[in-house]
């Protein structure tokens, strides 16, 4: 990715964005849970017990969490095929997510959705979405609801660098500007869409600037830096809540695994991922920055907690029943 186009990182005026210890630990816990969830799926997937396509979010944790820390349960998010991180950041039940990915009857979607369609509307999570560019148009709809209800609710869409090129995405941004909707479009620029580099497929090589041309404020931030994402999101979410209209955040952070599990990653330069793990680990960066107020032991305790939680989740998922075959025909219509 052309890093020259990356703007100066939006280093916070107040240290640690004014977050207190409890808030820092909450955010860190979510990021750590996403990491543990994804790494566990990576190994579970090797065992062959997980069906379908799995897209891991490891490496991008700071984006989902940095944004969602500003959201209330009644706010909405739309997501992508790479949706586990967004789900966890928005408060979905981690165990029931795992059950869903295992295709079990007690999964968040009763086993009917799977990894690419995990949703929990009661938490404002409008679903992972296997259509690239699917979330932005749903998010403007959710934002219309927010505007209509007049209670300062907002909607956020997460979209990849690949999805930033979709016509649906551009249409949604224009509509949001025209109707001044309380929505934030977050572009997760992880350098690749499948095996195609951002630098090739995004003709202008600058998602944020292109978005800004649509008439809404757009910022580009380092997506591995929780505090940078968090600060940009603070501005965008506040504007939306205050009725000042939509905004855009482009957050740059590569994924650590293949496009989907099992994919060979031939397009990564040698050592590229190792270097990321060394130098751009969002969790490590968080610990470094927050180390002044949170002790290493506290972080370790959280790390252990989330690993235990994921263990329980996998255990539950493995032990749960498959959906009964008669559920095949239910939930098609509300009325029959």
């Amino acid at each position, binding site marked *: 990715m052309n890093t020259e186009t990356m703007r100066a990182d939006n280093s916070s005026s107040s240290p640690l964005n004014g977050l207190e210890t409890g808030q820092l630990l909450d955010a860190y816990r979510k990021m750590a849970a996403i990491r543990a969830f994804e790494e566990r799926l990576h190994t579970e997937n090797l065992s062959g017990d997980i069906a379908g396509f799995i897209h891991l979010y490891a490496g991008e944790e700071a984006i989902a969490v940095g944004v969602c820390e500003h959201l209330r349960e009644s706010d*909405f998010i*739309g997501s992508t095929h790479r949706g586990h991180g967004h789900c966890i950041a928005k408060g979905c039940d981690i165990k029931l997510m795992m059950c869903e990915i295992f295709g079990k009857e007690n*999964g*968040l*979607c*009763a*086993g*009917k*959705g799977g990894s690419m*369609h995990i*949703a*929990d*509307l*009661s938490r404002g999570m*409008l*679903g992972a*979405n*296997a*259509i690239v560019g*699917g979330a*932005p*148009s*749903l*998010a*403007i*709809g*959710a*934002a*219309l*609801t*927010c*505007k*209509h*209800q007049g209670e300062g609710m907002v*909607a956020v869409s997460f979209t990849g660098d690949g999805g930033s090129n979709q*016509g*649906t995405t551009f*249409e*949604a941004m*224009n*509509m949001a500007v*025209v*109707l001044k909707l309380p929505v934030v479009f977050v572009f997760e620029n992880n350098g690749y869409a499948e095996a195609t580099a951002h630098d090739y497929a995004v003709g202008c090589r600058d998602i944020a600037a292109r978005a800004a041309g649509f008439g809404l404020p757009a910022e580009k931030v380092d997506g591995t830096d929780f505090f940078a994402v968090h600060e940009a999101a603070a501005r965008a979410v506040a504007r939306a809540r205050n009725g000042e209209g939509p905004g855009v955040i482009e957050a740059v952070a590569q994924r650590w695994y293949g496009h989907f599990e099992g994919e060979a990653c031939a397009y990564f330069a040698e050592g590229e991922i190792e270097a990321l793990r060394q130098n751009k680990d969002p969790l490590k960066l968080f610990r470094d920055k927050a180390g002044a107020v949170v002790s290493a032991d506290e972080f370790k305790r959280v790390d252990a907690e989330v690993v235990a939680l994921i263990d329980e989740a996998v255990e539950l998922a493995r032990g749960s029943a498959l959906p009964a075959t008669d559920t095949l025909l*239910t*939930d*098609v*219509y*509300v*009325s*029959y």
Partner: protein
Amino acid sequence: MTSKTVREAITEALLQEMRRDPSIVLMGEDVRGGAGSAVENLEAWGGVLGVTKGLWSEFGSARVIDTPITESAILGMAAGAAMTGMRPVAELMFADFFGVCFDAIYNQASKFRYMFGGKAKSPMVVRTMIGAGLRAAAQHSQSPYHIFTSVPGLKCVMPANAYDAKGLLIQAIRDDDPVVFCEHKTLYEKAMEVPDESYAIPFGEANILREGSDVSIVAFSSMVYVALEAADVLAREGIAAEIIDPRSSSPLDTDTLVETVEQTGRLVIVDESAARCGVAHDIAAFVSQEAFALLKAPIQIITPPHTPVPFSPALEDVWIPAADRIVRAARTVMRADD
């Protein structure tokens, strides 16, 4: 009870429902008309054929929303609003345009409930114009409701008259599932007595327009009138045709279809949607599987040819299924069991 055109019946349904339920919002291209113009307080269009006229003046821009020409954003926004608590009524000006925006209802709204394990609903309506006859040519004359019908999770309705238009639209709005509401552009001026008060017509209940024991003719939307015309001709020949308008293709009133074939043993289906894989074929397949023993003659399917809709009136008039084709088909099935 007042005489109302289909257009007026639709406007009235929208008006009455919007007064009743503040979560209903309209969105589409020029559903108001005049947004951004220098003329103040202008409702320039009320829809390209005037169907939403007056609504902006009553409900304002928050509920009658003019949009850019971006159908994916219109339908997608409706889907997102529906799943979060609103009851959007989106207008897809011509059904032909579904090609640029189908994903919002094909992969999104219609599937949410199922994909999310029954925990979502998408109470949205897509109002859209169908049909040939206005010399609007190949990209503004189609009736792709067979496609909508084939999508699990979607419902599909196409009223043939003002009474049905009002009652079915009210049902569509109150329905918790996504509904495509197909308005035939040649029917807007058709008038009949329509109650002033609000009423809903349930989906999946056919309308028997005319009873008859010799041959059953199934038709939707504007084809109903072609069928009625044919029935008049047939009556003069002593053939009593029963005319059935299922009104919704999804759900489909299969009971009435079986009942009518029980009585007549002969079925003619006339349908504008498609010459291949259309709604006529769907019904024929259903009847031939489920009521085979009742059939005294082959089912006759009458559709436009497998061609785009031509522009020239000389060709378009031949493209649209005409009464004489129905008459001939009915005669054929009457002869078949002689």
